């Protein structure tokens, strides 16, 4: 288990770093899928098999498909890559990297000094049955609200992505 966790963690960090720095959107997307799969491995190691499965099915599967779709529609090819190399000068990374590094430093400091003090319970497997019971028991209201959240996302996306109808008003605002 420990082995799985650390290997997954290394893969996840590496893949994520590659996502953030890639110039080609399709490549980045593939690394993102890899990263999500690695995180799923960590979930499994932490005793959350259902979450691991959903991470792969919903996140790496369904949600990433949306991205793939967008990349296809936008048809970014060589042109996009050339543009990315213009946008992604090393100088561009200075500020963002510094901010992210400081935040990371703070978090690591806090975790090192705070979390270690608490005796960590070793993970036990919390299986799908327990999760399901919680989701449709005490968390039923949350489940209902998730459906409303998805409804909002769907209606908004449907309305915004629809073609035509606005064309005569082009450029007005």
């Amino acid at each position, binding site marked *: *288990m*420990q082995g799985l966790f*650390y290997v997954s*963690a290394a893969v*996840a*960090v590496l893949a*994520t*770093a590659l996502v*953030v720095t890639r110039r080609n*959107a399709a490549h980045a*997307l593939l690394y993102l899928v890899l*990263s999500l799969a690695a995180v799923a491995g*960590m*979930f499994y190691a*932490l*005793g*959350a098999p259902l*979450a691991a499965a*959903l*991470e792969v099915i919903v*996140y790496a599967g*369904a*949600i990433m498909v*949306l*991205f793939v779709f*967008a990349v296809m529609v*936008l048809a970014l090819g060589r042109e*996009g890559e050339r*543009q990315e190399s213009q946008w992604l000068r090393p100088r*561009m*990374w200075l500020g*963002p*990297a510094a901010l*992210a*590094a400081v*935040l*990371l430093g703070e978090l690591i400091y806090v*975790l090192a000094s705070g*979390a270690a003090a608490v005796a*960590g*319970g*070793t*993970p*036990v497997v*919390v299986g799908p049955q*327990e*999760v399901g*019971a919680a989701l449709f028991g005490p*968390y039923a209201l*949350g489940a209902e609200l*998730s459906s409303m*959240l*998805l409804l*909002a*996302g769907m209606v*908004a*996306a449907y309305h*915004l*992505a629809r073609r035509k109808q606005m064309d005569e008003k*082009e450029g007005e605002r």
Partner: protein
Amino acid sequence: MNSVSPESGLVVAAVLFALGLGGVLARRNMLFVLMSIEIMLNAAALAMITAGARHHAADGQVMFMFILATAAAEVAVGLAIVLLIYRRRRTLDVDEAREMRG
């Protein structure tokens, strides 16, 4: 069975979160910005799962499912907006979107 200490899960989550934040701040391509936000949400999900694992409770995994729903809804709307902008301005540069300021 070797056990995993939950703290190390949080550390990995923090690293992923920082990477995602760096992506949001540095990338000009809207698609990459959206991907970076996904990374941050995913890091948060890892933190939740880790916390749940520490307390041996299902709550963390339930919260993870709510994150999934959130991520799905946000990505759907976000991509719709990106498509809309691309159709209109033929660019994916977030820095171009600054007609309003001051």
